[in-house]
């Protein structure tokens, strides 16, 4: 019997496997938040699949009491695409990291987003390779000292959200592992509810190899001034006193921070967030503290038909037009001849 009618709780999504992340790792908070929101979705556990690649983040499926597939490095989006194509009824999640999803698996992530396969993709960005013990990743920052860059990183990092937007993703959002009570669960809900490829970047602290990587906008004394929580239809106001806003520089396609009250600037002058505006999403995705706040929330949401739906619509339409496939007919189509 399906579990549809049974009310599930957080505990039902906790597997019997011992969690093996380092104590203090941000991944615990993400796992707890996911397990907390899962029951709300009213999706039977047997219809939920977690797919991952390789890395710390990719141990995720073992800890979820659902179906799960821990695949190979970088390939989770490809495996998940096959799972979803074979059974579109399934709720398919992908857990990946900055190395797994953006370095070795960048190609697959790009194409899963572009095709708009209905996958819920969680990218744990800790700006480091943790499981291989501390080499730099595609999101490590210039100058960052790691095991493989003892004198500092010299290659330029990428922005995961800008990458997703560039790949034509229809849902791009961002949160932080420490925002456990409200923001991260909210973003997980939005990620789940979006039909199509949803991409959620989660800034996640690796307390062993890259501890404090996000302190410059997460620490208590700076957080309010350096975090902008986006809400569709609401002005982009932030700051401990809610007295800062973002607006377009006059005559330029460029954002600037304005102080409300200065020079007659009011909330009415501040930009209003529009989730469906792609150029705006790009601008927001590039903002970096300290000059700007980091943009959190749903940067972009603009649903489109999903890949697996269109694939199966085509299969069904062909069946309707040609009738269900008949091998005898297929073999006998075209030129044949009889002997004896």
């Amino acid at each position, binding site marked *: 019997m399906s579990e549809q009618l049974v009310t599930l709780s957080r505990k039902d999504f906790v597997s019997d496997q011992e969690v093996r992340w380092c104590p203090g790792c941000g991944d615990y908070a993400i796992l707890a938040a996911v397990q907390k929101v899962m029951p709300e979705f009213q999706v039977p556990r047997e219809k939920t699949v977690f797919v991952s690649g390789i890395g710390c983040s990719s141990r995720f499926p073992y800890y979820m009491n659902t179906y799960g597939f821990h695949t190979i490095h970088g390939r989770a989006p490809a*495996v998940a695409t096959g799972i979803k194509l074979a059974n579109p009824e399934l709720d398919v999640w992908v857990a990946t990291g900055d190395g797994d999803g953006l370095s070795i698996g960048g190609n697959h992530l790009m194409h899963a987003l572009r095709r708009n396969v209905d996958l819920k993709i969680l990218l744990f960005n800790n700006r480091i390779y943790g499981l291989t013990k501390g080499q730099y990743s595609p999101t490590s920052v210039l100058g960052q000292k790691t095991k493989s860059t003892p004198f500092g990183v010299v290659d330029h990092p990428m922005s995961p959200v800008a990458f997703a937007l560039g790949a034509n993703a229809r849902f791009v959002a961002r949160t932080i592992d420490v925002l456990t009570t409200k923001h991260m669960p909210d973003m997980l809900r939005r990620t789940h509810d979006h039909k199509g490829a949803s991409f959620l970047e989660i800034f996640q602290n690796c307390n062993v190899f890259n501890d404090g990587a996000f302190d410059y906008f997460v620490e208590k004394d700076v957080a309010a001034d350096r975090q902008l929580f986006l809400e569709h239809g609401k002005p982009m106001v932030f700051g401990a006193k809610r007295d800062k806003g973002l607006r377009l520089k006059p005559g330029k396609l460029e954002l600037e921070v304005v102080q409300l009250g200065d020079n007659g600037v009011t909330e009415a002058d501040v930009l209003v967030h529009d989730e469906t505006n792609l150029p705006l999403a790009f601008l927001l995705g590039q903002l970096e503290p300290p000059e700007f706040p980091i943009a959190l929330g749903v940067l972009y949401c603009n649903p489109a038909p999903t890949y697996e739906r269109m694939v199966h619509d085509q299969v069904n339409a062909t069946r309707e037009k040609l009738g269900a496939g008949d091998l005898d007919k297929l073999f006998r189509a075209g030129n044949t001849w009889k002997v004896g």
Partner: protein
Amino acid sequence: MDHVESTTSKVTGKLPTEEIDSVVIRFAGDSGDGMQLTGTQFTQATALQGNDLATFPDFPAEIRAPAGTTFGVSAFQIQFASFDVLTPGDAPDALVAMNPAALRVHLKDLPRGGLLIVNSGAFTPGNLKKAGYETNPIEDGSLDGYRLVSVDISKATLAATQPFGLSQKEALRCKNMWTLGLAFWLYDRDRQSTIDGLRKQFAKRPEIADANIAALNAGHAYGETIELPSGMSRLIVPKAKYEPGLYRNTTGNEATAWGLIAGCQSAGIPMMLGSYPITPASDILHYLSALKHFGVVTFQAEDEIAAICAAIGASFSGSLGVTTTSGPGMALKTEAMGLAVVTELPLVIVDIQRGGPSTGLPTKTEQSDLLQAVVGRNADTPLAVLAAATPGDCFTLAIEAVRIATKYMTPVILLTDGYLANGAEPWRIPEASALPKFPVHLRTEAAGFHPFLRDPDTLGRAWAVPGTPELLHRIGGLEKDYDSGNISYDAANHHKMTKTRAAKIAGIARDIPLQTVHEGEDSGDMLVVSWGSTYGAVLQGVRNARRRGLKVSHAHVRYMSPFPRNLGEVLSRFKKILVPEMNNGQLVKLLRAEYLAPAEGFNKISGQPFRVSEIESKIRETLEA
């Protein structure tokens, strides 16, 4: 004006007809001359005439190589006969050369006295120079000794198509049909199937269809009025004796596609093909993507890795994941094959082998992926490997691959090659109801379940797919505990799991046919062992040698991993073992390693199939050594 020259005296008027057993004809021209179409049309008409046949399309990797160059030459050879045809023939009896480059490349294969038809209209100074001729071979006597028919096919085609108002470029593209018309006349083929095909193909541009048909008819009419070299007859090849039944032509790629569909119907599960375009495998993707009404889902992935990974995901979800590729793609899929082995999911991987290493010879055939298929993965990673012998056998073994994959929960590699993929042969159409049935039983019972619970006979694990209540589980690339399926780093457990995976594949040997000796005695001085597409040439070579009194037998292996369980015993009954392969010695290594058999290799790595004569003389040489 059309002219005919020959090195011997001429015969005018209607030719006598002569009945012969077999004919080998090769059409050669520029890649843009439509030689492959000419060949396939000739093949179709020949099949309908009731001859047995085998074909060999041989074309360059470039889509449109610069016109007139030798590397841009495309050719199509067909052997048709009143007997059981095993190969497209060693050397052509007749060669059609549409330009000097085609003559330059292919004349060396035409025996003296062979029929040579050349398009004199293409023998311009420019084309002669590109082909490396200083003087025109049609005029300088260098073609003495061949039965030469020199016709300005270009001009004759322009004249025939003139009423239809095509541009000169479009009109000239009909010259392959003019040539086909002449060939049809020479070998007494019926034109109707080609005419019907042209009408269908150019339904939206009837003037193109009309022009092509006019060219075809003009070439045929030219035959009626032609002066041909003396000693020539119009050749009649009587029908071959087939087993009774309904027949059609099929290529290896088409048969593979159909076999995969049939196999999934036999298993009662849907198919999901993940594939990335690669020569010479792409046609399977093309065929299957047009057969959506069979419930097939096709996925053109972003790369070879994604193609196999999506197929693995589909298998996890209860479809049969299939991926099709060629050598370089196989290399890229290697890691994912390991994942399918360790997660013990059914998967069919079709490798249409081509010349290598690296990009190698994309359009030429080779059998050099055997070791890659059998052992080419990190760690101890066994899986099943099958190899098709003929285009029709691709159908049979594709079904068998699905059977083994689903019964044993394992990836299966089906090896074919460029020669089988594109080559055609008559195929007796089976009744769908008579195909083997092997329905899959997905696990639904919760009692006692864990994901690596094994069937005690096959050692295949329980297949429980997402969507099944109460069987929630996780699988992955990490080693599993034998008794629970959970992650395990335990030393003894890893040893046991490695042995179990090996035993599962080895056990398939109990479930496949015993190795037979196809031709000749069951024991004796010498056994020739072949695998894959060399089947026809090797069998014919052995038959010829036996007709000359040599004591030699032939065994053809189709199950490459595991081998048939009596293979070692079969080998042990012969003093000498010869293993011809289109590689640098791969099966020979496996036979020596597995059975300590005194096997010797005979290798041809030219991108071309073996000739019967090469096999025959090697047999003699080996016996005499």
